[in-house]
């Protein structure tokens, strides 16, 4: 201890606090660890009693989530011939053959397209609006900002009825473009509020210097403010992406065949005989792990962002 401060907690306090928090953290990630563990189990290991902590890992769940399988009789199996690939062999153990790819890859791709598409659009619109609100005298500024925030209070189901009708008459229902527009609108309030906070922090003198040097206002925005706001823009983008990635209510109501994302699809995964939990867990793992990795790697910016929207007002 180099210096004594009355506000610095004692070593004993730190230890107690640390132990309690670590204990809570371990309990809280147990369900997530369990999802990942279950994805590597065989169906019988997954439903064993007592729950199995140690087991021989298998990738059967991952094979099952990407394929559809059918059960064949002995004669039929003989007619099909020897399994050719490692995944054929894996399902053949249970007397099954792979009859084709499942729709999981397609749904996952939809999630990627819609997630990134809406994030880009949301950042472009949000940055422009946030810059204008931060730097210019916009008439009715406070009212507009409150209006933007209030759009977040509406339950998604409440606006889903007319959006459903609207999309149907515009030919947007069950399309990527429709979902991208919808998610952009839903995320825009968060994006404008967060970005306005970040841009407010950039000293206005930078742009004034640029304007005196002969930049146009747009050039000053583009070449001076944007690079300064890059970190803020990046963390806002991650929030928008995570939201669009996780969204369920609109996806389940407004999409069915073509543009359906992964969240409504994963719970519908079933095996040949009953609920195939390892396959569900495999789908969930593939879907959730990218977000977990992102969160851990970018924790400094993200943790700031979560409280930012709420605290800076």
């Amino acid at each position, binding site marked *: 201890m180099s210096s004594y401060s009355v506000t610095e907690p004692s070593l004993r306090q730190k230890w107690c606090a640390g132990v309690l928090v670590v204990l809570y953290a371990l309990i809280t990630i147990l369900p997530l660890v369990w999802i990942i563990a279950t994805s590597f189990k065989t169906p019988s290991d997954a439903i064993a009693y007592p729950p199995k902590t140690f087991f021989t890992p298998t990738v059967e769940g991952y094979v099952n989530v990407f394929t559809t399988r059918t059960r064949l009789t002995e004669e039929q199996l003989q007619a099909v011939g020897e399994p050719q690939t490692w995944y054929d062999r894996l399902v053949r153990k249970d007397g099954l053959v792979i009859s084709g790819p499942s729709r999981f890859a397609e749904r996952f791709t939809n999630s990627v397209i819609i997630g990134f598409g809406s994030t880009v659009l949301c950042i472009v619109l949000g940055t*422009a609006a946030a810059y204008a609100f931060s730097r210019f005298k916009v008439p009715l500024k406070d009212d507009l900002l409150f209006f933007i925030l209030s759009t977040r209070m509406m339950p998604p189901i409440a606006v889903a009825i*007319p959006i459903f009708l609207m999309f149907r008459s515009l030919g947007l229902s069950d399309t990527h473009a429709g979902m991208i527009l919808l998610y952009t609108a839903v995320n825009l309030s968060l994006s404008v509020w967060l970005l306005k906070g970040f841009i407010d922090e950039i000293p206005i003198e930078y742009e004034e210097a640029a304007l005196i040097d002969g930049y146009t206002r747009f050039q000053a925005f583009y070449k001076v403010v944007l690079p300064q706001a890059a970190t803020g823009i990046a963390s806002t983008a991650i929030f928008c992406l995570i939201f669009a990635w996780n969204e369920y209510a609109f996806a389940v109501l407004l999409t069915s065949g073509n543009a359906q994302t992964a969240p409504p699809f994963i719970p519908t995964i079933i095996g040949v005989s009953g609920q195939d939990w390892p396959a569900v867990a495999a789908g969930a793992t593939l879907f959730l792990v990218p977000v977990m990795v992102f969160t851990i790697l970018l924790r400094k910016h993200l943790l700031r962002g979560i409280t930012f929207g709420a605290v800076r007002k």
Partner: protein
Amino acid sequence: MLQSSVDRVAEATPHAIARRMHGLSDRALAWLFVAPSIVLLLAVNIFPLIWTIRLSFTNFRVNRPNAEVEFIGLKNYLNILSDRDIWLTMQATAHFLIWTIVLQVLIGFALAFLINKKFRGNDLWTTIIVLPMMLSPAVVGNFWTFLYQPQIGLFNYAVGFLTGADPSSFSMIGDVSLAPWAIIIVDTWMWTPFVMLICLAGLRSIPASIYEAAECDRASKWRQFWTITIPLVLPFLMLAVLFRGIENFKMFDLVVQLTGGGPGSVTELTSINLKREAFEKWRTGYASAYAVILFVTVFGLASIYVKALNKVKQR
């Protein structure tokens, strides 16, 4: 020929004049920057809302496009407000709201208080606690049904291990008296970190000098906690409650995947009930009136709450 001479003149023109000619005025730029966002929000939020209000006075049904649409005045509203089942879903929602907020505030504040002791590695452990709230509620909720299975579920096993009860003797999502708690547990697991982060921001905003002054005045730690920490964190805490309140009033994805509103309708929260009326029974006009009532309720409660919040802040 003409084009190239124009270019030459333009090149020779001093930069400042070119700016005045080509650069947009600040006013125009402001509108150009704000307009697309406002237009999108009007199209996807306000226009549908107005449409919902209009539909709420009719007996329109999406699945009968050829039937004649009649204006029936306030009949939908009266039917909803006098419907016993809807009051039951309101009660289920209130139960869910109150308990999730109480639990999340207590646990969230306690965690923030502990993390603020700044032990080594608190940053990483905070991130691990935050993980559940970053994940898809529908996907996670679906997996929780597996954890809640009698006998094979990890949750039942853990409860059985700790209390000695038989893990197959109770079903969290199949039992009428347990199901409301099943959804409260998962929501608390998922969203406590949010309250925690906001409380942490509040705790970190308190200047150390206030505690030092209190220490000089020989105020006990207990007293410092109640007269400094709590009042200064209160505005942050109230903000967290506002956000959680609005979010949980809208709650849909997690609960739909966990219980689907069952058993019976004990966990049928208003959003789930609304979805049933609108997209299963296709009573569009009726569901629209329902949506308007919900929106007015959220908006009204939130406005009253924000007024109270501002009063606390001014103190």
